């Protein structure tokens, strides 16, 4: 019995310290400034252990039963703490409070363990050697933990699996003690059932740690994830909610099947209303093929080149039956040519000119995307245009990001384009803006009545060109490679609404 209990001391000491290290590591990863995080976590944890020790005196009877209960609880709380922290980081307002509450709870439970064990053993071991042995195993366990955590656990298992494994150990200790001292434990069946459930849950979590990431992510999305993949360029997630599909790139909604027709009709048809006899079309971005679908409705179109960086996107929307239905098999139209390349460099190497260019890039929320909205980019684009070419640029929300919207306008103007703004209401996105741009002045022709549409018509477009005073034109800096004013404006404006 003594050997078993001392082994227990050793294991729980190791586990106890690993929880502390996990909390410190997660806190430094998420909050940065590792010195402060580790220092505070260690302080709070040790203090909590003291409080746990203090609390142990209020446990008067059934010490072994209590000890086993605490083991299960430590395993549960400690084991899921890192997962909880990752989950809550983006969603709760006061993350620090959650962090230190969790650290305190784990510490207090761990603090209960040793005093209880000492009392369990006090009648069986001489006090002098009891104290000596318990603390020896305690400190040796701590040494082991501090060595294996950075050298073995973190590099080979990662933070989530490490937490599950250590939680598992605590629960296993509880279960083994339960088996060994069954007769001395109150209501052993209930405890055993609980322990087995926890054990299985952690084994499962350990095996599925990869998926836990996806799962925690799933809570951030509405609806059920039906497709998720990480490409070298982005994370693609498609969800289903009721009957609608939603595409997210890096967590940002790209379209919802309920109202994407509004967005894509507004993106494509006004450009055709300003171009005459458009035959050669270039689509930049738009790997989902939905803009392509609208383009192909114009029977005069002879050739469409689509440039999208990510082959995984165009593959998904040209091979998956469900998604092909959305773009009406646009990628299989013989007029369509797909180029998986960076738009900037592709434009450089290209030599032809286009009648209509449709620019459907993601919003400028990073410096690398911001490059595709700069004077240099529009100058490069200009070399692929003729006098009558018409360009349309999707340009974020003029309501939420008014300065960002007009910054794109001012940048297009700086390069010498004639620019005409318009905006429409897309329920999933809100008020959404676009620009038409051309070397020569833009003249609106009536829309081709033969093109099937649900949203854009002559009157809708005419109304879309009106901007009420609250979102009217304003002066901004021009977006340049060496000074990406747009990225900063965008970040500032969208952070106010919490995106």
């Amino acid at each position: 019995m003594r050997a078993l209990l001392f082994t227990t001391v050793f294991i729980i000491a190791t586990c106890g310290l690993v929880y502390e290290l996990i909390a410190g590591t997660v806190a430094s990863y998420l909050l940065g400034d590792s010195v402060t995080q580790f220092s505070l976590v260690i302080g709070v944890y040790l203090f909590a252990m003291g409080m746990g020790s203090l609390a142990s005196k209020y446990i008067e009877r059934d010490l072994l039963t209590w000890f086993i209960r605490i083991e299960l609880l430590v395993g549960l709380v400690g084991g899921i703490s890192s997962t909880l922290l990752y989950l809550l980081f983006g969603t709760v307002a006061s993350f620090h409070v959650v962090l230190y509450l969790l650290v305190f709870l784990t510490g207090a439970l761990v603090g209960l363990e040793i005093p209880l064990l000492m009392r369990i053993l006090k009648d069986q071991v001489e006090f002098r050697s009891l104290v000596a042995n318990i603390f020896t195993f305690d400190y040796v366990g701590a040494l082991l933990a501090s060595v294996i955590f950075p050298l073995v656990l973190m590099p080979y298992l990662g933070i989530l699996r490490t937490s599950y494994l250590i939680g598992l150990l605590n629960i296993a200790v509880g279960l083994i003690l339960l088996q060994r001292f069954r007769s001395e434990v109150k209501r052993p069946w209930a405890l055993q059932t609980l322990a087995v459930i926890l054990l299985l849950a952690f084994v499962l979590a350990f095996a599925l740690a990869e998926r836990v990431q996806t799962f925690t992510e799933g809570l951030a999305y509405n609806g059920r994830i039906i497709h998720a993949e990480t490409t070298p360029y982005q994370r693609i997630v498609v969800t289903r909610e009721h009957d609608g599909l939603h595409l997210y790139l890096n967590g940002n909604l790209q379209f919802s099947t309920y109202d994407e027709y509004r967005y894509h009709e507004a993106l494509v048809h006004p450009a055709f209303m300003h171009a005459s006899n458009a035959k050669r079309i270039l689509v930049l971005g738009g790997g989902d093929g939905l803009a392509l679908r609208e383009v192909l409705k114009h029977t005069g179109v002879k050739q469409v080149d689509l440039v999208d960086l990510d082959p995984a996107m165009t593959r998904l929307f040209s091979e998956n039956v469900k998604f092909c239905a959305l773009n009406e098999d646009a990628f299989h139209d013989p007029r369509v040519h797909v180029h998986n390349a960076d738009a900037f460099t592709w434009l450089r190497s290209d030599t032809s000119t286009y009648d209509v260019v449709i620019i459907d890039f993601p919003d400028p929320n990073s410096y690398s995307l911001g490059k595709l909205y700069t004077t240099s980019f529009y100058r490069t684009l200009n070399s692929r245009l003729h006098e009558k070419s018409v360009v349309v640029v999707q340009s974020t929300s003029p309501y939420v990001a008014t300065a960002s919207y007009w910054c794109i306008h001012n940048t297009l103007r700086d390069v010498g384009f004639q620019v005409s703004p318009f905006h429409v209401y897309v329920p999933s996105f809100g008020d959404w803006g676009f620009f038409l741009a051309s070397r020569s002045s833009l003249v609106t022709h009536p829309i081709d009545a033969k093109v099937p549409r649900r949203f854009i018509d002559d009157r809708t477009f005419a109304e879309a060109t009106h901007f009420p005073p609250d979102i009217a034109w304003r002066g901004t800096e021009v977006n340049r490679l060496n000074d990406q004013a747009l990225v900063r404006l965008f970040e500032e404006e969208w952070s106010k609404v919490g995106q």
Partner: protein
Amino acid sequence: MNRRQAIRLVTVSGAGLFLLRCSGTNARTFPVKLNGASAERGHRLREAGTGKPSRIEHEGVIIVGGGVAGLSAAGALKEGGVDDLLVLELEDEVGGNARSGANAHGRFPLGAHYLPVPETSDDRLIAFLGSCGSIIGRTQEGLPVYNEEHLCGDPHERLFHRGQWRSGIRPRSGLSAADEAQFDRFERMVEDLRQVKGEDGRWAFAIPVDASSTSEDTEALRRLDDISFSDWLAQLGFSAPALLWYLDYSCMDDLGAPAQQVSAWAGLHYFAARRGYGANAEQGSVLTWPEGNDFLVNALKRPVKDHTRTAALVRSVRSSGETVEVDVEHMDTGEMVRYTARHVVLSVPQFIASRILGPVGERRAAGLEYAPWVVVNLTLERPPEERGGEPMAWDNVLFGSKSLGYVNASHQRLDHPRSVILTHYRALTGRTPRLARELVAGVEIAQWVDDAVAELEQVHPDIRDRILEAEVAIWGHGMIVPIPGFIHGGVRRELQRPIGGRIHFAHSDLSGMSLFEEAFHHGSRVAQEILSGWPA
């Protein structure tokens, strides 16, 4: 001997801190290549030359050294009508410490890697930048319009300070009110100094250094060259640790040595001499390219391509009546050739000029200090994990570290390469340059890689596992250090004076600062020196 054969390929274990991984089977390895100045070739000058010249050739002007100064001189001479000129370069490539490396993932600098936009009145440099495509025109007001793809892209700089990447290199977080006040006072002072002009109409702090005011009313400022920057700072009560770190960093960045080793005039020059701007470039903007200043070298070398011989070890330069004799060992053919020329330009650092000139050049290098540099290029399969705060910028600096941090060599690229090349810079300081050089010679190159990686692991925990290959450039005499007394002490002027009107000197060490502008200036200067008497 072929330079390729001189390149040593070694393998570095991916393990460093973790002993376990070292012995583990999954320890990652990657190839490490050595580049930079070939110490082996340079040091051959120490040995006596063997063999007699097998033939004699005649040239108008011989330029010894194909760095920025030599190429600038050659270009200006060619433009001035001199057609019989020859540039002799020791290495297999011209460019000196502005050279670059390349691998399957892209190009990267081995040393000098940026150029601040020049003052709007610097017609010569502006014309040159026009010929490279970095300036695409002038506005009606005469302001240069820069090619925005050559201006450093946004975001420019970030500093890892207090657990976070923060925008800009000047520390701003966690400063006490007193420290903040010191920063403000320093910044106001240099802002004022930037506007100081002497009675001679020249800036007190100018680029090139030789364009600085020499009139009496700026004498007090020039006296700042007599004391060290750190002494001057102490005298004025600048003591905030964050400020002193920042100033040390700045001195190391431009001058190769900390505030303690450089003169106060030189230290202030870093802040007070940059006034350049353009129609689309605000003051403080810099030009940079994936391959660093090799971009500029390429533009310099193009017009004189047919007048350049590489792998040429110049053994001696001697005046001989109306001509100058230059003995050269062509290392690619093994041939010894004697060239005679009307003029010779020694566009090499003075410690080399001294050896080449023999007794005439004795003591030329006395008192000149050079800082050794180690530049480590790491090619990563993809961008490394970040520790929070601002995203990766062009220049990325770790507060308090012994290195100068790293530059993202892929930053100026407009495509989306999956891989990324980081150029890690370290000037070896805290000891005299000579001791530092001995240290450099004694360290295995794998150790330099390991040092750089260990430092970057603090901010990119997974960087070691992302490395595909590494290339180390060691510059034993990377940069002249403007120690107190050197810039305005008079020695410099003496060293610039031609010998016998036929042997001319052009190198940035004659300015006391290893800057592109200085080398370019000296190249142009000697070209004028020669052209003014041409044909002599």
